[in-house]
């Protein structure tokens, strides 16, 4: 019996990364912009997405959404009210979505008929940060009720995101939310990150967000 060293040098999430890479290629071939929404539970992802989907539909854009949830399909039902195709991914207690789950749930959709695909991740600021879902843009949501220091508490996910959206701005005063401090903390963990301030309830900042999506899609498609 002899002991030997075997070099491996392989990413532990290699399998997920490879599925995500193939998925991204497939989505790009269809001209889609794919957005992965991550945040803590209760930050307003569903309300934000609901309004986003409705606004896109009203503007004549086509969109679809996948929504990850641990156990219920409540969010999928809410999103379907926006009048666009929505599918639920129930993770059975798992704390994050993986690329294979996304891929499986896209199987019977004609992806060429959509311009935008949204993936509402499981509400969790830790685990989803490690999993590439084949998205073009990762958007992290932060509600005013959570406190300005969330980015400092969860630097991994905020650093891994491309855009930060501050939600529930209609509650900012009641929560004594310090917007400047929040912006400073976001910039501390992700210098240069684009930050939008919104309220899905009043509509504040939502048209800027829609414009941002449209710019991202143009940039994505001209890059191919």
């Amino acid at each position, binding site marked *: 019996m002899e002991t030997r*060293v075997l070099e*491996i040098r392989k990413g*532990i999430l*290699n399998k997920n990364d490879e599925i995500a890479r193939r998925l991204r290629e497939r989505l790009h071939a269809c001209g889609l912009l794919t957005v992965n929404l991550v945040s803590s539970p209760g930050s307003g992802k569903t309300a934000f997405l609901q309004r986003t989907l409705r606004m896109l539909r009203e503007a004549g854009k086509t969109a679809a959404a996948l929504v990850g949830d641990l156990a219920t399909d409540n969010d999928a039902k809410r999103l379907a009210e926006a009048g666009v195709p929505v599918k639920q991914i129930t993770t059975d207690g798992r*704390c994050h979505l993986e690329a294979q789950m996304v891929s499986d749930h896209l199987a019977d959709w004609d992806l060429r008929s959509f311009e935008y695909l949204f993936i509402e991740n499981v509400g969790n600021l830790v*685990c989803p940060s*490690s999993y590439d879902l084949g998205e073009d843009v990762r958007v992290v949501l932060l509600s005013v009720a959570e406190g300005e220091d969330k980015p400092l508490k969860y*630097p991994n996910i905020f*650093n891994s995101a491309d855009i930060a959206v501050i939600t529930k701005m209609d509650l900012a005063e009641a929560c004594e939310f310090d917007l400047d401090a929040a912006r400073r903390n976001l910039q*501390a963990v992700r210098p240069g990150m684009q930050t939008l301030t919104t309220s899905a309830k009043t509509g504040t900042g939502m048209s800027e967000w829609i414009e941002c999506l449209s710019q991202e899609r143009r940039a994505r498609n001209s890059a191919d």
Partner: protein
Amino acid sequence: MHELSIAYSVVEIATQSAVEAGATRVKSVHVRLGALAGVVRGALEFSYEIACAGTMLEGSSLVVTELPARVYCAVCGIEVELESVQLFCCPRCDTPSGDLRQGRELDVEYIEVDLPGDEHGNTSAGDTKRNSEQE
């Protein structure tokens, strides 16, 4: 906690390489873990033992090398280690930098395995190595 599923992936990757090399047992697994990989070391170590149970990795040790986050500072013209992942800023000149060069690593670097020797005292891995050198 996603560390358990990460631990199962570690076991799967190590088992595959060990079996391919004709090993009978894995003694240790060496993993590199970046400060921004989104994995808690203690939780991974705890999960590892559970994931190894009943496999050829049972009783093996997990050796974790933690890698700090490093960014490129355009002002200093060098790569620098961040003092904290809560402040992406060059510790020498205070210039913010998001140009991450190290910190997302989450990989199996190498494993140590037991190989059965043949009647000449050579190991199958030794043969594999010689073969690959000839190619």
